[in-house]
């Protein structure tokens, strides 16, 4: 119980003017674990993450961050404990990489918002950790989508949070950087952080999560280890019959493949 950093308890949320809703959903993130949050499009993954990070307020239910009700905390207090990596962050001015990462120090600043040497040290370390040190003078608009996502991670890490909530953080990364990104997350949880990550890549969820939550239609329908959840039966139930699950040749973790396409079908038939 005391290892839980973040605990979401029975939250409901309804978008005004739409029939869709998130139904009394509960989950928690503990120290030292990566929780993979998966589910088909429109299943409520992002909504759940926004509620958990306090960006939107649930209609009912509550969110506890280190056993404090998030509704009663100031944004700055929340940001010192919880780092939120939104799905799309694009500003209308162009900042340099270093400026963006320095923005992560906001919860620790006061007054007109200038950084102390200690703040600059943290920014420097985060630039190195997210492997964007070499771009520090470059402008965000001059970076590729993948480089930008790593800059955003560095910016969130600069908050020095205890729990990270990431919404599709590797959607624009190549395979090598996806692996590096999740390896970094693994290192962070080994240092005691808790991570909740929404991803569409079921294999990354399988290889790197300690626990997996499967959402469908605004509800968590399954929760457990990747081996328990990523099975042919459960995934077909959530995603329809477009997937094939096979075991990994060396680790025995589940691998999820899309079902073979039309061309292959024809080749097989002939």
């Amino acid at each position, binding site marked *: 119980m005391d290892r839980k950093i973040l605990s979401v308890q029975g939250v409901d949320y309804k978008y005004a003017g739409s029939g869709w809703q998130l139904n009394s959903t509960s989950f928690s993130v503990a120290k030292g674990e990566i929780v993979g949050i998966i589910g088909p499009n429109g299943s409520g993954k992002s909504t759940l993450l926004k509620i958990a990070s306090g960006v939107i307020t649930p209609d009912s239910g509550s969110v506890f961050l280190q056993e404090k009700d998030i509704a009663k905390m100031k944004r700055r207090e929340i940001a010192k404990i919880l780092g939120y990596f939104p799905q799309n*962050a694009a500003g209308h001015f162009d900042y340099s990489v270093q400026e963006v990462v320095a923005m992560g120090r906001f919860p620790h600043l006061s007054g007109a918002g200038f950084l102390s040497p200690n703040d600059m040290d943290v920014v420097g370390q985060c630039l190195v950790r997210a492997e964007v040190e070499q771009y520090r003078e470059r402008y965000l608009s001059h970076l590729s989508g993948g480089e930008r996502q790593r800059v955003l991670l560095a910016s969130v890490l600069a908050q020095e949070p205890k729990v990270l909530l990431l919404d599709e953080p590797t959607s624009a990364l190549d395979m090598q950087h996806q692996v590096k990104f999740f390896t970094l997350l693994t290192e962070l949880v080994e240092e005691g952080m808790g991570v909740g990550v929404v991803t569409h890549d079921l294999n990354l969820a399988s290889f790197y999560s300690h626990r997996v939550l499967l959402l469908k239609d605004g509800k968590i329908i399954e929760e457990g280890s990747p081996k328990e959840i990523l099975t042919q039966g459960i995934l077909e139930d959530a995603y329809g019959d477009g997937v094939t699950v096979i075991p990994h040749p060396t680790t025995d973790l589940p691998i999820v493949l899309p079902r073979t396409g039309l061309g292959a079908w024809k080749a097989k038939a002939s």
Partner: protein
Amino acid sequence: MAGYGLLSVVVLAGAPFFGSERLGIANITNALFSHIPHVDADIFFYHRIPRVLLAFLVGGSLAVAGSSLQVVLRNPLAEPFILGISGAGAVGAVIIISVPGLSIYFGPFFSVQLFSLLGCILCVGAIYWLARSPLGVSMTTILLAGVTVNILCGAAILMIRYIVSPHLLVAMDRWMMGGLDVVGYRELSALLPLLLPGLLLLFLQGQALNQLAFGEEMAMGHGVNVASVQKQVFLGTGLATAAAVSLAGPIGFVGLIIPHAVRRLSGVDHRVVLPASFCLGGAFLTICDLFARTVVAPTEMPVGIITAIIGGPVFFRILLKRNRNM
């Protein structure tokens, strides 16, 4: 930043010495240090200095207000008057001009100033009320509400102009063109209680504005109370703009263009942009006012005309020279 500071000091120190009347520096220093009265000293201390101070404060405030609003409203065309403040101020001024019997002083304020101030504050109050609505009003709604207020006020002004006797129209037009003619320090000091808290409120938002410019969700994740920053910016720009408009009329261009010029020249870090806008806006309006009171001496041009005539080409130059950071 040092460059902006230096520019401000040079402009503030130099501008009072220029004008339609050539002043003897010896006469001024004699009056100051040896108490020998001289008309040159009176002009210098009671006309030139207050006027230069007013121009600098008004220009600086409008530029800072514009910088902040462009971020909060997420619109590069935002400027202090887009929230309807100038329109409401103009209605107040026009109403009082249309009743010549009311051209009197209320405390430190001339009736026109007082009523335009009331109009502005009414408008600021309405926007603030809208912004703090618990339902969560979008910035687009506030922008549209401001534009609507301006259109309504425009219609009200046309109606008043249609009704009143024609010789009053000159006074109304003159107010609408904007002007910085003050005598002494009375109005100036009466408006400081409005202007200074407004500016201070805005200057404290530098880092938060950077965060907002980078995206609202990211800003919230970083610990910015987005709703509160928006409210504070509306209140701050409202107070500063109300003070500026009621004293100097709706002087256009400064609040829209100076922030863009600063971002082109010095980047988009609002901890720098805000003070730099204040310096550049202040210096720019002071120089424009210098032209306004010298080019057609012994009479004067409305400064609102000069800001666009000088500022337009200068801004084009900046626009074409550097194409980064936007």
